[in-house]
Structure formats: C-alpha cells, structure tokens
C-alpha cells in the first residue's frame, strides 16, 4: 500500500505539472503570434 | 422596513398570478417522496430510519428548483435594473428576496410534510410540530445561502445546472444538522437536539450577515 500511495501522489503532481507546462507553452506561442500580428498594424 | 415589504408583496403578487414556483416545488417534493418509497419498499428498512434523509433530500432539491426561478426571473425580464434603481440598499433587497423565497418554500414544505407523514404511516402528534419547527429553521438557512447563490448562478451561461453545483456543498451543515435533529425526533429517543438547532440558527445568522454585506458585489453591473 505504501508505494502505491506515494506513486499515486507523484502521478497526480506529474499530471498537473504536465498539464500546466503544455498550457504555458501553448499560451506563450499564442502570445507571440498575437504580438507579431499586431506589430504589422499601425 | 417599507421597501422590504414592498419587495415581498411584489413577489407574492407574481406568485399568485403564475403559481409557478410553489407548484413546481410541491410537485417535485412529492415525487421525491414517492420515488424513495418505491426504492426502499423492498428493503424492509424501518421507516423512521430512512425517513429523515428522504424528507431532507426532498426539501433541499425542491428548494433549488424554487430558487432557480426567483432570481432568473428578475434577470431575464431586466427587472433587476428596476429593483436596483429602487430607493433601498442592496442588503435590504437581499433580505426581501430571502423573505419571499423563504415564504414560498415554507408553504410548499408544509404541504409536503403531511404527505410524508401519511406515506410513512406516522401519526400526527408532537413529532409533527417538532419536525415543522426544524423545517422552518433549516429552510431559513437554505434560503439565506440559496438566494445569493442563485443571484450568482443567474449570471452564468447554464443557470439551472450551476445552482445545485454551488449550493449543495455549501448547505452540507444544514443537511447534517437538520437530518440529525429530525431523526432524533422521529425515533422518539430522548431528544438532545439543542446543539443541532444551534448549528441551524448559527448557520442562518452567519449567512444572512455575510450575504447582506456582499450582496452588492453580486448584483452590480
């Protein structure tokens, strides 16, 4: 039971971290795109 | 005090004309009781054991049905603007809404309660009065927290879905205290319900105060 509990907690945090980093990457890409798009306009 | 009664009066007039809120609450409450009766009929459990839970499931879900209507009605017809322009504080507006919601719920519950007694083969004695008293206190708590939450949920995209999600976790103390007090009265054991009644009253007081203070944030544009 011990190792299962610790593994589960680790999995929870890894999934959350993974979701966060993919979200961050996506948002930063979008931010760059928007900035480029707006730079062309006066 | 006068604007407060005006709000209650307005809601009562609307309800007298449409009869939507009370009739839907009433029908839903009775349906829950009937479903519970069929579901537990074969289990052979003592009526007084499952009774309190049954009653409060019916009450709390019926209350959500009524609360959903009360503020959504104002927002759909843009009546909230008019209410906000009326010469009264936001807190008083909240208290008026709580009073009218409470009144409708109590009317519906006092019709559901005898049905509950009949379906469960209980005799109308002191227990009926005791349970009626508990339902007044519990309903006050539910309407205090439910009125402000229905104001919040009326602003969202899925009003009907959002209110139960917001309300059920917050009304857990009311349900626990009310079910426990009801079951002690139903079982005729030496009732030690003062602690539970204190929790019910305390919950209502805390939520009436906090909501009175923060209601202006919930309605302002």
């Amino acid at each position, binding site marked *: *039971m011990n190792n299962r509990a610790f593994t589960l907690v680790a999995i929870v945090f890894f999934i*959350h971290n993974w979701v966060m980093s993919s979200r961050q990457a996506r948002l930063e890409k979008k931010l760059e795109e928007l900035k480029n798009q707006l730079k062309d306009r006066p | 005090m006068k604007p407060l009664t005006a709000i209650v009066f307005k809601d009562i007039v609307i309800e007298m004309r449409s009869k939507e809120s009370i009739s839907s609450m009433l029908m839903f409450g009775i349906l829950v009781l009937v479903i519970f009766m069929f579901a537990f009929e074969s289990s052979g459990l003592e009526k007084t054991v499952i009774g309190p839970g049954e009653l409060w499931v019916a009450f709390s879900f019926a209350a959500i049905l009524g609360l959903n209507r009360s503020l959504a009605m104002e927002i759909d017809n843009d009546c909230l603007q008019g209410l906000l322009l009326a010469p009264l504080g936001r807190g008083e507006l909240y208290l008026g809404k709580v009073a009218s919601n409470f009144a409708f719920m109590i009317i519906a519950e006092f019709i559901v309660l005898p049905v509950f007694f009949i379906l469960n083969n209980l005799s109308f004695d002191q227990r009926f009065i005791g349970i009626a008293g508990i339902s007044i206190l519990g309903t006050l708590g539910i309407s205090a927290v439910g009125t402000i939450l229905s104001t919040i949920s009326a602003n969202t995209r899925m009003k009907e879905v959002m209110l139960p999600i917001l309300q059920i976790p917050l009304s*857990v*103390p009311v349900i626990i205290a009310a079910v426990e007090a009801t079951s002690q009265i139903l079982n005729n054991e030496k009732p030690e319900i003062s602690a539970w009644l204190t929790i019910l009253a305390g919950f209502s007081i805390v939520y009436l105060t906090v909501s009175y203070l923060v209601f202006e944030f919930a309605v302002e544009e």
Partner: protein
Amino acid sequence: MKVKILAILSVITMIPALYMIFLFAPTEATQGNAQRIFYIHVPLAVVGAYGSAIMLFIGCLGFLITRDLKWDRFAACSAEMGVVFTAAQLLTAMMWAKPIWGTWYAFDSRGTLQIVLLLIYIAYFMLRSYLPDREKRAKLCGVFGLLGMVDVPINYLSIYLFRTQHPQPVISPGGGGVDPDMAKTLLMSFIAITLLYAYVFVRRLTIAKVEEEVDYLTQVALANE
C-alpha cells in the same frame, strides 16, 4: 527565475524527505509500514487543503476590497492548488485507511470536511469557466469564494458534533510526536511539501498572467479587424 529556484529547492528537499520517510524513520509498532504514508498525508492536508482554503479566503476578500485583478488571480490559483492537493491527500488517506481500518473511506470528521472542501474548490472552478466576462467573473467568484470559505468552520463544527455523539468506530491515527526521529521526518516532509506547493503556485500564477495577456491581446486584435 523565481520559479526555477523554487523548483530546484523543492527537488533538493524532496530527496532527503523521501529518504527519511522510507529509511530513517522507525517503523511504528501497531500499524507497521503503512504508517509511513502519514508523513506525506499530514503536510498535504495542512499545507494543501487548509492552506489553500485560507489563501482563497484572503484572495477573495482582497479582491472585493481593492478591486485589483491580481487578487482574483491569486484566488483562482489557490483554488486550483486546493483541487490538486486535496485530491492527492484524499488518495493517500484512502490508501492508508484500507489496510488499517479495512475500508477505503470512513465517515469521520476530517475526511468528510476534506471531501466538502474539494467539492467547494471544484464548484469555484466550474463557476469561473461558466462566466465569460473578466470583471464579472472576478466579482462573482470573489463572492462565492468568500461564502464557501465561511462555510468551512461551520461544516467542521457540525461534522465534529455528528461524530462525537456517536461512538467512534475507528482508532485515531497518529502517535507521531513521540519518537524524535519521527518528528524530524515529519518536519522535513513539511518543508518539502511547502516548497513544492510554493513552486506549483508561483508557476500557476505566471501562467495566469500570460493567459490574461493573451485574452487582452486577442480582444485588441479583434477590435482592429
């Protein structure tokens, strides 16, 4: 930068914490090895679930007083931390309760409070996603968060009363404070979990900022078209 420092610090403290939990701390007499779950369960509950509750309360109150959107971001991030940490903590509780109590979940005061707390955090989150307008979302979520966190002490009181009037079906866990080695281990895992919490929180906060910026720029781009 702050995020990287916190990440490194939490890894640095997590390794000795795990070492102390599994190898250094003495095995408890009655519960055996299962008691070791306790070292990670307690910090997760205290820092994760209750700490997030206090932070959510501060965030909502701060927003309603100052009307500064940074408090709303603070509240949103602490609610998300609440969901993750409370869920993780409930998992450890279940894994511990199965061999010791024989059930996954016993209706005791703290466990029930944690479940209600988790439901309130999730409700807060759903409310956020159903409100499209930024200002309105901050205001209404502030009100709901405040109401939800006022609920927590009343809830605890009622559940506590509920349990003490009935006989307790379970032995209360603990006895961790007796052995000094156990106390040291608990302290170490407290530090590790707090740093982990700080890291995840700060990281989530930066993402929330970027998200807001993207929203704003999208609106600007749409307005220009």
